[in-house]
């Protein structure tokens, strides 16, 4: 079965090409139908692949062919199925199929409906091809392709200036990280002789990376940090987190699929995929943990005060991705991936439910919502399931994975990071229930909008219900009840005999952390406390929000303005870059070209001077000719050694 894994990305590609030829006037039913059916088939195949890897005696299957020959080396492309990859295939195809279905309702009667589906299918293909990559070069190729799809979809409503700006910003900010990753990949290629994960891992763990006389450990650290730059950009980690909230300008299904469940998780996936490299570079791993922890806290603080429903959830995504990074950084490999999975479900759910609200009300401002519980019960209860999962309330999915992470962080000896995580958990419960109370309970704040609110029909309901089921139950894939099934599945990649990584590394990766009932109780209590505070301020209609804002005026402003990071970057990097560009232009026009003009002037002056040599007298000319001949003969005699010989 594993050898047919290439079918999984191929089907969405087929859908893309088919839609491309169908054109911009194709009927909505066919466009959406083909896309959903093909991706659903991909999902089914993924399930078989997932199963087959599990029972396969020799896990890592790799199939490659030569793409380009460079000197004595080859660049290969192909696909590789590991346990991690198989899990990712299942997550991506499932969420994709549901989002494709949901979009049928959400994008109904959009002028460019077929184009939207083209882009989405291209994205699904690229994301799956990224997951299956057997080497860093192919990963980078599809890494950029998913970035392109994100750019196209964020800017889908291109006529909106905010969308145009957000699309550009998302591409450029992630490009900054990608450039570091580009250098890191090249460094690893030069140091190990290959882009292949397995070759790089064995070289890194055996300490045989060599580059310009640097020690293997140094090369591994530098390369891992450079590659992590790419992950920071893609997964919107501090300090490159600024693009993701702006990317909410795209249609909401895009936010659910690309900016919550799949593409933004690619950074986490990358660190997990390249884990043996990171493990052999402890400094890099440490950086991952701290960046993750800082991001988790910072983003959750910003999410407390945002007014736009999608921006709250976007900052929540940034924060949750921070948790995953932190997990990987402290050595809890399986928990990071586990949280990636649960988060994909409950965050996609939250976005789609928010999309359902936006679709009904035509606003994203939380303070124009309210009381939707009565008109949109399905959306309300599915959103609630997602919110409970995000807040980490037992037994919803997020509880299991987040708690694993917090426990492992403390157990691995990172009390500060644990405190960050716990504080962020409080904020998380608060901000998501702030959204819930503002949107769904109390009285409508905008009667006109409330009037025409309605559920979005079965195409929008089915994905909500399925995702709500996963958000509620997915945590049970990895609990003491099933002896941590997912953990054991993921560790199989590093089990003897087919692991390319060395034994120390395998031991580090395969480390498990025992359940700590006390810590679990603390997290749940913190989550419940967050919900309680949110309820105090926002459940009952009234001036809760303003009271809260007045009470904490300074911190409120800092949070509302996102710690002024955007402003600082705008001034320093964008402004600085523009000033430098203007300087280069000035130098170009006035100094370089000015010099040329000056030479031109001199030339014409010289020409005027030389005109005086045109005396018209044969004597003068022959005098000059004689001088010239003498010089020539002199050179010939003294330098070459004779005129004729």
């Amino acid at each position, binding site marked *: 079965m594993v050898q047919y894994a290439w079918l999984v990305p191929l089907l969405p590609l087929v859908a893309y090409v088919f839609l491309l030829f169908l054109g911009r006037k194709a009927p909505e039913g066919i466009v959406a139908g083909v896309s959903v059916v093909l991706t659903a088939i991909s999902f089914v195949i993924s399930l078989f692949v997932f199963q087959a890897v599990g029972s396969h005696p020799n896990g890592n299957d790799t199939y490659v062919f030569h793409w380009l*020959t460079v000197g004595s080396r080859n660049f290969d492309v192909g696909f590789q199925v590991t346990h991690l990859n198989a899990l990712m295939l299942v997550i991506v195809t499932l969420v994709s199929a549901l989002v494709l279905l949901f979009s049928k309702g959400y994008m109904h009667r959009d002028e460019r409906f077929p184009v939207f589906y083209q882009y989405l299918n291209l994205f699904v293909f690229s994301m799956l091809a990224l997951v299956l990559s057997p080497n860093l070069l192919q990963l980078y190729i599809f890494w950029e392709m998913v970035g392109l799809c994100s750019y196209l979809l964020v800017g889908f409503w291109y*006529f909106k200036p905010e969308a145009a700006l957000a699309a550009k910003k998302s591409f450029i900010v992630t490009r900054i990280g990608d450039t570091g990753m580009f250098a890191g990949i090249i460094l690893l290629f030069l140091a190990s002789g290959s882009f292949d994960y397995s070759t790089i891992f064995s070289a890194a763990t055996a300490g045989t990376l060599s580059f310009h006389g640097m020690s293997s450990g140094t090369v591994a650290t530098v390369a891992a940090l450079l590659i992590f730059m790419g992950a920071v950009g893609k997964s919107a980690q501090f300090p490159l987190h600024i693009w993701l909230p702006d990317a909410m300008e795209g249609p909401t299904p895009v936010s659910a699929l690309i900016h919550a469940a799949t593409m933004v998780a690619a950074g986490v996936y990358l660190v997990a995929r390249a884990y043996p490299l990171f493990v052999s570079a402890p400094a890099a791993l440490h950086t991952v943990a701290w960046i993750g922890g800082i991001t988790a806290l910072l983003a959750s603080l910003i999410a407390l005060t945002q007014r736009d429903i999608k921006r709250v959830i976007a900052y929540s995504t940034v924060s949750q991705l921070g948790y995953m990074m932190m997990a990987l950084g402290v050595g809890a490999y399986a928990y990071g991936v586990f949280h990636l999975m649960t988060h994909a479900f409950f965050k996609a759910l939250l976005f789609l439910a928010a999309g359902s609200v936006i679709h009904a009300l035509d606003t994203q401002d939380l303070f124009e919502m309210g009381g939707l519980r009565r008109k949109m019960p399905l959306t309300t209860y599915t959103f609630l399931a997602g919110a409970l999962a995000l807040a980490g309330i037992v037994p919803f999915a997020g509880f299991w994975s987040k708690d694993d992470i917090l426990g492992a962080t403390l157990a691995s000896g990172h009390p500060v990071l644990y405190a960050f995580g716990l504080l962020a958990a409080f904020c998380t419960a608060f901000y998501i229930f702030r959204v819930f109370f503002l949107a769904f309970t109390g009285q409508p704040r905008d009667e006109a909008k409330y009037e025409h609110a309605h559920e979005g029909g079965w195409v929008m309901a089915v994905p909500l219900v399925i995702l709500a089921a996963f958000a509620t139950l997915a945590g049970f894939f990895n609990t003491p009840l099933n002896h941590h099934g997912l953990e054991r599945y993921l560790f199989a990649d590093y089990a003897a005999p087919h692991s390319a990584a060395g034994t120390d590394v395998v031991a580090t990766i395969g480390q498990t952390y025992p359940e700590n009932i006390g810590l679990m109780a603390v997290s749940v209590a913190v989550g419940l406390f967050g919900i309680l505070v949110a309820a105090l301020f926002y459940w009952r209609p009234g001036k809760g929000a303003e009271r809260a804002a007045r009470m904490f005026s300074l911190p409120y402003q800092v949070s509302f303005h996102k710690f002024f990071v955007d402003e600082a970057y705008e001034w320093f990097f964008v402004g600085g870059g523009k000033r430098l560009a203007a300087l280069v232009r000035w130098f170009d026009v006035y100094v370089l070209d000015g010099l040329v003009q000056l030479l031109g002037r001199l030339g014409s002056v010289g020409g005027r001077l030389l005109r005086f040599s045109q005396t018209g007298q044969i004597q003068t000319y022959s005098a000059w000719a004689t001088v010239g001949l003498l010089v020539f003969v002199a050179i010939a005699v003294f330098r070459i050694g004779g005129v004729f010989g």
Partner: protein
Amino acid sequence: MSLAFWVVTAPLIAALLILLLPKVRFTAAKVLALLGGLVSLVLVLAAWIGFPGTPSLFADASSVTWFSLPAFWQSTSLTVNLAFGFDGLSLPLAALTAFVVCLAVFGARGRAEEAGDGLDPRVAHPRSYFFWISMAAAGILGVFSALDIFTFFVALEVTLFSSFFLIQLFGKRGSNRAATKFLIYRGFATVAMLVALVGIAYGAAGYFGSASPTAITFSIPQLLGTVSHASAAQFPAYYRGALFLVLLLAVFIEEAFVPFHTWLPTTHAYADTPTNMLIGGLLTKTGAYVLLRFGVGMLPDQVHRYGTLIAVFGVINILYGAFAAWAQKNWRTLVAFGSISHMGIVLLGIASMTAAGLQGAMFMIISSGLLTALLFYLTGAIESRTQTLDMAQLGGLSKRMPMLSGFLLVAALGSLGLPLTSGFISEIQAFIGGFDRFPALSFVGVVGLILSAVYLLYAIQKTTFGPLRTAVDGGPGFAAGGGRDGSLDATPPEYLPTVLMTLFVLLIGIYPNLLGHLFGLSVQGLLGIGG
């Protein structure tokens, strides 16, 4: 006569026919020029198919003795040949040339109605217009396929004055100064190159050495075989170094490398679209070709020795071009500076003297040629509708020209090196070479990857995204141009060049071995097999 010979002469014959026929109309002249280009293209492709897979071999070479000077100097004789042929390096370049020439001619059109500044000179003098285009085509093809230094110079001179006339006679109002600047700069480069190459030929024959000189040859294949093996006694390193620096100077001017680049943006600002495609897409690639052919091919030790210097200039070009492009307010100069930035990557790749670096440089020459031509074509098509390429006056073009805007985006993405386009595969190879030898410098150079995204997406955002700007909507071009239903999008004849160029940008990006197997041979030849 070999294929290569006819590849070069086909446009030449077309040019002569255009000149000889009495009072030709625009379309007739265009068809003749197009036929010349097409014949070249078909013949290049035939040569490509029949190309033997062996390194450092000039397949299908032909040589005619032009004149011979017995007892030329110091009792040696000199034979000057007209010789043409292809190897793994020149064949893709010739193919690119024939391809872009065909599309440039196909896309050439004049404004029928009288604009403010009188009748379009292209309509008034179609014979002259297509004569010079065909001459330029023959010249560029000659440069890439010449197997004799003398032939090479004849071809180079042809490109010089035919481009000069194209800029001066058919450019925008005020193109006089631009044309003069072009002529002076490139004229000087040609002189420097003449000194360097003739010097190399003399050096190879032993004129600078202590041993007695042998017969001079101007044959490039022979020189490639002998120069790098010539002993120090025969061709002292001092002379090689001096000649190499002269050659490098010529290359810098020819290729519009900073700080000798100011002729390029000026030229592109004034020349018309087909001329811009020829100059930006093809003519500016001759410098890099010369550096590979004569620098790496004949004086590899010197390239190695001055590697750091070349790499430093490569990185300066990458960053300088990118920052300058960021500050541009007009698409034409933006594309010009973008191409300067790209060619900086070529310089870095060549300086590394590694297989990946050299192959990346070769890929980049082709990629940049295709993308520059495509960008000039698309912006030209947009300009013919909006009457301006000033970004401050454009906006929201996707609304009225979705396809043109879409292709412009693809071209921009190719230029910024998105994977699965030709730009990416060129950049990564060149940078692998760069990092291999100059890690710190290359690390500075990769910042150019960020900057290219900045200036291109900034321009795209200003031009095609956002609300449709009324200044543009009400402009004269919007009233005059366009199709039946008021749509301003690409017309069927405009699709052909656009789609074809885009297709090759993608094809090279998706299946790079298409070029790789030819360039690989050339790299093996240049570095010595296995090197």
